């Protein structure tokens, strides 16, 4: 080891806590970067492999009923590579020991061989192949796990009014259900909703679909135009009750995985950048001070014949050690947190295997980025040190010159104490450094605002969606639309207090060349259970003519109240009509359209019918009510508001909680690192001054106050800025996260701000105290003797 390197090691030992502070801040940025990039890699590669190996389709469609012969027409569409047709049937499940009714989606398995597309992945038990195996079924893993079902267990389902019992042959996964949520639901509810597969013949017999199919999937040949294939599919299926084909980009499971990757992509750039910039600044501050202290040593080295390059490299290596430590810590942190988040993804996403894959390229990039940050940090300081002629450098630096601070120049300086004026003048002498320190503290404050605003946004959505809009206890859907008498039947169920009908129809809404497919809801004009609310929380009374759209849908279709909208019904008599948009409603999940129920029924031309009802149920008769719904064959689906709410809280609250913890840690590290580092540098620069104060009779506390006075001012200045930055960050992130499916409102509360201020203040005070402890070791005699 060269002597210069030995010097390097000893210098590092003397500066170890400061070097550690810088390395930690750097590590936070890298942890975030490595974690997010690795998660993106893990999700993308796992998803792509899964899709490819299990032949996930590219175009999907549902219809009423078409004979098998139609399959050939579909296969003949130019651009279609493979077709898979089958049956999908929604059923009510009966699980022993569970009060609330559960629903399932049973899909068919081909009569010969394996599924051509959307192949299943066997988790346990055995696969059902071919015609045999009467009374056997395959169950999706999420549901099986939530209900503790294993191969060999039995499960009962009501198929078209007939109750049948099946034995579970195997537990499986499907690329179609990576995200396994009930249709239209924003979140999974694995306890009460599951997917199943059984042989075609049995399912066809139970659903009167023998020789026919009611759903299909397609893959395309490379280069085929998806839109024209979708148009052709729609044309072919029209006579058979086609409900509109859609591509992968609209597939409910696929979009959720894609959205998650998009969110990660957003996070993988911004935050690491913030942390690494702060780390670069801290490196610069530490190195500048170190080089100033070693001014005479540098002169000596130069006098002895060392080249500028060698001296520069020596100090750069110093910074490089910090970079390597930061990268190592960051990689460890990224891998550890990545593993935790992958665990969390198991709550939402079902892959045959989702392993954490370290993005190794990012690791290399991280080292390069951090080294660059370090070079930037060291460059200026080293350059000014090596440019000095040795003779000059060996003389001590001239005393720092000060001038009165701005507040004094304008004449109000006399209102301040002497230590306060010292702090002001110190800031005035190094404004750039003060600004950067303040900025870094502001960023730490800002980082804290973000997760709390997410949490508050989610709480707002919960309150808004489930207290203000939806006031029912349950929503009950009928298997098929029924006559008004059905409402009376539902009202007669035990414990029901109020019941309000709903009529739903699948439609395509079109304005110019923009369109969306969704369920159009018909509600009574004065609906009190499922209310239509505008942006100002005012109830919208549905008019006898016209349509109300959710604000997001109006944005997607580019329409405003007063504009006309083309409605094409995709079911029943398939009427087409034009309606004016009369108002915009506010909601935070998906997109929605509403009409007055009578108006919708008139437009559909099938008479007065209802698809289901919103009910309030007396608490005391809840079990009785649930038992009754299970025994009513007509009821297809029961959605319990509280269950969804609990599920939402559990899954989303858990993930937000984890993210909040991560941010909290990172922000604390930055606040701590910045304050500690600044205090240490200040202590080193002003050692003599502080020792003098001690000698002339200032107590340790008083000297500590002088030391941290400047930092206190900078922190105080940083806090309001931090809140502004945090609000901006939260807004920007919510903008990138928000999409057609899930939206969060930007909610910024005083409590959120107070928390951020509190955390940064506490971190600052603690680190300042830690730095002040070094005042105890101040060598009063030695410092006064030597000239600095």
């Amino acid at each position, binding site marked *: 080891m060269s002597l210069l390197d030995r010097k390097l090691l000893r210098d590092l030992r003397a500066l170890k806590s400061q070097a550690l502070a810088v390395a930690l801040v750097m590590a936070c940025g890298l942890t975030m970067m490595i974690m997010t990039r690795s998660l993106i890699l893990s999700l993308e590669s796992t998803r792509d492999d899964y899709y490819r190996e299990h032949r996930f389709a590219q175009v999907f469609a549902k219809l009423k009923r078409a004979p098998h012969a139609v399959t050939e027409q579909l296969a003949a569409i130019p651009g279609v590579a493979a077709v898979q047709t089958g049956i999908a049937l929604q059923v009510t499940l009966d699980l022993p020991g569970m009060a609330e009714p559960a629903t399932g989606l049973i899909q068919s398995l081909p009569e010969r061989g394996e599924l051509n597309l959307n192949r299943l992945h066997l988790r346990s038990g055995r696969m059902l192949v071919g015609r045999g195996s009467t009374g056997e079924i395959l169950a999706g893993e999420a549901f099986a796990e939530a209900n503790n079902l294993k191969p060999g267990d039995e499960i009962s389902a009501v198929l078209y009014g007939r109750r049948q019992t099946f034995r579970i042959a195997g537990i499986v996964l499907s690329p179609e259900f990576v995200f396994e949520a009930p249709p239209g639901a924003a979140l999974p509810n694995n306890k009460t909703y599951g997917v199943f597969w059984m042989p075609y013949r049995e399912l066809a017999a139970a659903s009167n679909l023998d020789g026919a199919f009611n759903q299909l999937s397609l893959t395309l040949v490379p280069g085929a135009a998806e839109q024209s294939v979708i148009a052709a599919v729609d044309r072919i299926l029209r006579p058979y009750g086609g409900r509109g084909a859609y591509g992968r980009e609209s597939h409910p499971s696929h979009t959720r995985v894609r959205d998650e990757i998009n969110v990660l992509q957003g996070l993988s750039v911004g935050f690491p950048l913030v942390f690494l910039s702060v780390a670069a600044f801290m490196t610069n501050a530490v190195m500048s001070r170190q080089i100033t202290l070693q001014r005479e040593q540098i002169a000596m080295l130069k006098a002895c014949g060392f080249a500028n390059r060698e001296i520069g490299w020596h100090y750069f290596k110093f910074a490089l050690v910090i970079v390597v430590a930061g990268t190592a810590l960051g990689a460890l942190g990224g891998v550890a947190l990545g593993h935790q988040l992958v665990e969390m993804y198991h709550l939402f996403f079902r892959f045959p295997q989702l392993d954490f894959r370290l993005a190794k390229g990012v690791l290399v990039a991280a080292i390069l980025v951090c080294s660059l940050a370090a070079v930037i940090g060291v460059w200026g300081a080293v350059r000014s040190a090596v440019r000095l002629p040795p003779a000059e450098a060996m003389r001590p630096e*001239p*005393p*720092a*010159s*000060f*001038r009165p601070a701005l507040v004094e120049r304008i004449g109000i300086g006399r209102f301040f*104490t*002497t230590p306060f*004026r*010292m702090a002001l*003048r*110190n800031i005035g*002498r190094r404004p750039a450094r003060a600004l950067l320190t303040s900025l870094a503290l502001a960023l730490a404050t800002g980082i804290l605002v973000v997760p709390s605003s997410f949490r508050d946004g989610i709480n707002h959505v919960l309150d808004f969606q489930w207290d203000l809009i939806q006031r029912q206890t349950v929503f009950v859907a009928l298997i098929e639309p029924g006559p008004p008498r059905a409402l009376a039947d539902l009202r007669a169920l035990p414990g029901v207090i109020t019941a309000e009908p709903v009529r739903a129809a699948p439609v395509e809404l079109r304005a110019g060349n923009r369109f969306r497919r969704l369920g159009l809801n018909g509600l009574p004009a004065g609906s009190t259970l499922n209310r239509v609310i505008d942006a100002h929380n005012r109830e919208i009374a549905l008019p006898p003519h016209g349509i109300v759209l959710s604000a997001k849908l109006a944005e997607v279709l580019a329409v405003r109240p007063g504009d006309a909208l083309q409605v094409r019904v995709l079911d029943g008599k398939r009427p087409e009509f034009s309606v004016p948009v009369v108002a915009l409603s506010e909601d935070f999940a998906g997109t929605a359209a509403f009409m007055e129920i009578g108006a919708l029924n008139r437009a559909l031309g099938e008479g007065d019918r209802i698809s289901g009802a919103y009910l309030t149920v007396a608490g005391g008769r809840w079990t009785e009510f649930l038992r009754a719904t299970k025994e009513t064959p007509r009821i297809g689906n029961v959605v319990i508001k509280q269950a969804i709410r609990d599920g939402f809280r559990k899954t989303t609250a858990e993930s937000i909680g984890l993210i909040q913890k991560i941010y909290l840690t990172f922000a604390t590290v930055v606040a701590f690192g910045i304050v500690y580092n600044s205090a240490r540098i200040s202590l080193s620069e002003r050692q*003599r*001054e502080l*020792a*003098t*104060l*001690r*000698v*002339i*009779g*200032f*107590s*340790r506390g*008083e000297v500590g106050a002088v030391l941290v006075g400047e930092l206190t001012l900078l922190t105080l200045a940083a806090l309001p800025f931090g809140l502004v930055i945090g609000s901006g960050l939260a807004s920007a992130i919510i903008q990138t996260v928000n999409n057609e499916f899930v939206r969060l409102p930007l909610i910024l509360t005083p409590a959120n701000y107070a928390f951020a201020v509190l955390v940064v203040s506490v971190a600052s005070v603690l680190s300042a105290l830690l730095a002040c402890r070094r005042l105890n070791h101040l060598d*009063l*005699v030695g410092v*006064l*003797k*030597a*000239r600095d």
Partner: protein
Amino acid sequence: MSSASPASTVTPPPVFQVRGLTKTYGEGEAVVRALAGVDLDCHAGEFIVVLGASGSGKSTLLNLLGGLDSPTGGTLRYRDQNLGTADEAGLTLYRRNSVGFVFQFYNLIPSLTARENVALITEIAPDPMTPEEALELVGLGARMDHFPAQLSGGEQQRVAIARAIAKRPAVLLCDEPTGALDVRTGIVVLEAIERINRELGTLTLVITHNAVISDMADRVLTLSDGLITQVTANPQRKPASGLRW
């Protein structure tokens, strides 16, 4: 000790009473005996110059008298207070109220003007003079609002003296006060110290390598190897203005 004697007939009790004072640094083989047993009485209004080679123990003595360090053995009394057993807070209070320091390298706070450097003390001392008075005493009335970087070395040292005496200390301790100055400026600084000693009756101890300064003193102590080896009393103090080196 005759505690009941009338003050007019006997010498007042000494400001410092030092008996068998020792100070060692380090342990075992590396032990350094900086003071090996010093006996000394210092009285109010005295001007004492301490001479000695480097390592003779003169700075250690000054540090102990100034409450910057604690002795290893012996007794060290300041008036009624036992400095040898005083704790950190007690020493801080002692420095704050009773001692003024002047150092070779001035040790002014660079971010404060001359007036503010002095005010730093007058804000915390119990019965101070105003910063203006203190600066007038050292002849710097005209440069009160200058920052240290705008003052010459001699001027900076006089600010340091003003800062030291603004609290009206009982003791003024000066460690090589002219060490960094040229002769002319050094004499101006010494005149300031002399004036304080005379007009305020402050017990003044000056440590120096410069033997010429000893002509100003009432008593001259010479230290060697941690012991006072010689005490000379000057029958006549020479004014600072008459010194040359």
